[in-house]
């Protein structure tokens, strides 16, 4: 790499910008050794030696503080731990601010929504028993249940890449939900049921599409989507929110699969949503039936061979519960 073009999204409403635009900056090996530099090194070099009007956040340079999250070629990363050499494509690296949050200037976004959502899940321990004299001790095996979520550095990468937040800002989002899981699975907390009740509402655990964007973009080991699935598991286990569409979806999905080995995706929505919904959605089903794509039940029901083995596995696991 002798030179790299850094295509940086600029936006300064104070200077009258109405829309963000791109500006190219060229760095060569004479500026800094590109093969050994991070994207943050490059941004700093641009700001310090080429254009001091460029705004970006940074602090620790060690992937601990979580300040320097931004989109590199479309996906969100901590630029302090992203090597230029790993992201350069045809001589260009495209840098944009995080998505799903309003831009203040250039690469700096307003993270208010991130903190509001975090606050909404009450991210602190709320024990219900009286304070002990010395300390609350915890079995290491229990800590293991939430150790990954406890490593969150609140950088916002997952929130920026979340596909649901892109279309629905009421969703609590991956970071806040992963934090909520950390407390639901902490046996020192006394508000597990209340938390799960709240999390089962609109914008909560059942609104995640499980797209894995957050798992992919998390720079530590949180795996927010896996945490959301664990929250769903906890809610179902505790019998909380059983009348929500999400819980009914899981219930009838399971019912279909353990009986036949196959999900009948025609009958599932009818059962989960009720006949009123089914009638209202005839407009979707009818053309598909007429084109021979979908068979109206009970036609077209099928099962795997030896479905009794699928039923047996389910029964054995249920008995162990």
């Amino acid at each position, binding site marked *: 790499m002798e030179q790299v073009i850094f295509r940086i999204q600029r936006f300064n409403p104070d200077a009258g910008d109405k829309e963000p635009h791109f500006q190219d900056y060229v760095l060569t090996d004479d500026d800094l050794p590109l093969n050994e530099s991070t994207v943050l090194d490059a941004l700093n070099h641009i700001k310090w030696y080429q254009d001091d009007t460029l705004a970006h956040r940074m602090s620790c340079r060690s992937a601990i503080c979580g300040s320097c999250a931004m989109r590199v070629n479309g996906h969100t990363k901590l630029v302090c731990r992203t090597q230029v050499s790993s992201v350069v494509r045809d001589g260009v690296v495209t840098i944009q601010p995080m998505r799903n949050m309003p831009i203040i200037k250039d690469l700096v976004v307003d993270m208010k929504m991130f903190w509001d959502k975090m606050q909404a899940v009450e991210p602190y321990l709320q024990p219900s028993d009286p304070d002990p004299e010395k300390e609350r001790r915890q079995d290491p095996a229990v800590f293991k249940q939430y150790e990954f979520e406890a490593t969150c550095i609140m950088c916002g990468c997952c929130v920026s890449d979340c596909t649901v937040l892109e279309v629905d800002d009421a969703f609590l989002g991956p970071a806040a939900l992963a934090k909520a899981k950390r407390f639901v699975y902490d046996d020192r907390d006394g508000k597990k049921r209340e938390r799960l009740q709240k999390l089962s509402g609109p914008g909560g655990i059942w609104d995640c599409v499980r797209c894995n964007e957050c798992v992919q973009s998390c720079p530590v080991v949180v795996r927010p989507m896996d945490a959301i699935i664990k929250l769903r*598991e906890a809610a179902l286990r505790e019998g909380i929110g059983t009348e929500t569409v999400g819980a009914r979806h899981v219930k009838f999905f399971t019912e279909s699969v353990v009986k036949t080995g196959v999900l*009948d995706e025609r009958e599932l929505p009818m059962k989960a949503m009720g006949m009123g919904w089914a009638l209202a959605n005839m407009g979707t089903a009818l053309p598909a039936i007429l084109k021979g794509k979908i068979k109206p039940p009970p036609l077209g029901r099928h099962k795997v061979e030896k479905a009794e083995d699928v039923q047996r596995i389910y029964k054995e696991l249920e008995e162990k519960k």
Partner: protein
Amino acid sequence: MKVAYFPGCVAKGNCPELYQSTARIAPLIGLELVELKEAPCTGAGVLQSQNPKLADAYNAKTLALAEELGLELMTICSTCIGCLRKSNKKLQEDEAYRAEVNALLKPGGHEYHGKANVTHLLYVLINEVGLDKLRGMVKKPLTGLRVAPFYGCYILRPADIMGLDDPDHPTSLERVVEALGATPVDYHGKTRCCGFPIGLENEPAAFKMAGKHIGEAKDKGADCMVTPCPLCHMNLDLQQPKASKYVNRDLNMPVLHLPQLVGLALGVPPKELGLGKHIVSTHSVLAKVGM
């Protein structure tokens, strides 16, 4: 090449044209499909919240069936490949857990040793058939057809489980599209979620997602979209009229399953690929490639 074939629920349910077109092109690309008729649903990420061990046990059974045949396990669904690989990783890396799951399989006469590998038709086309060979098989090059790939989440992410393509900038579908003589269209939404999983839970969000991606593909001049995932297909095609309402624009975008696009280029008559079964008519695509 012979593969253990896992079609998944949707290809035998709401998207019969996917099952049909896969079976139709298989012999043409030298692929022998040994369908695993006892293999249950992968859980699709839903069963996993009921009981993760149940999903892993079902997937272990499928993996064991492929292992017994000594064949690579091929899916035709992004969700299926993702769930099967996720279970497989857990079962391969954690021997104690595998033993627990095997205890559940044993009465059914199966045991999984951790040897199976899970792939998808898309990667079979690239790695086993080979793009040069595929190019040579093309009888009706799809010249001039602008195709917007739509991957489906699990076939790409997370990379530590999938690792078959770059999750941020995948090229597999684009390379297949090119090999068939068509032109791939690039757009932001191609690696995002179609919205299908929350169609019941949060209808506006689910269909805005689909509508947004289809709209972007349209703005970039795509004649059609192609997807390796039947769940995506349901949200993009079956639900396109609804998606269109939620984004308040006319979309009218044909969406093809991957083997349908391959089949067209290999000269298979459209009817035999189930192209008449789509909600959004595929006539404009056929007209464009002169059929």
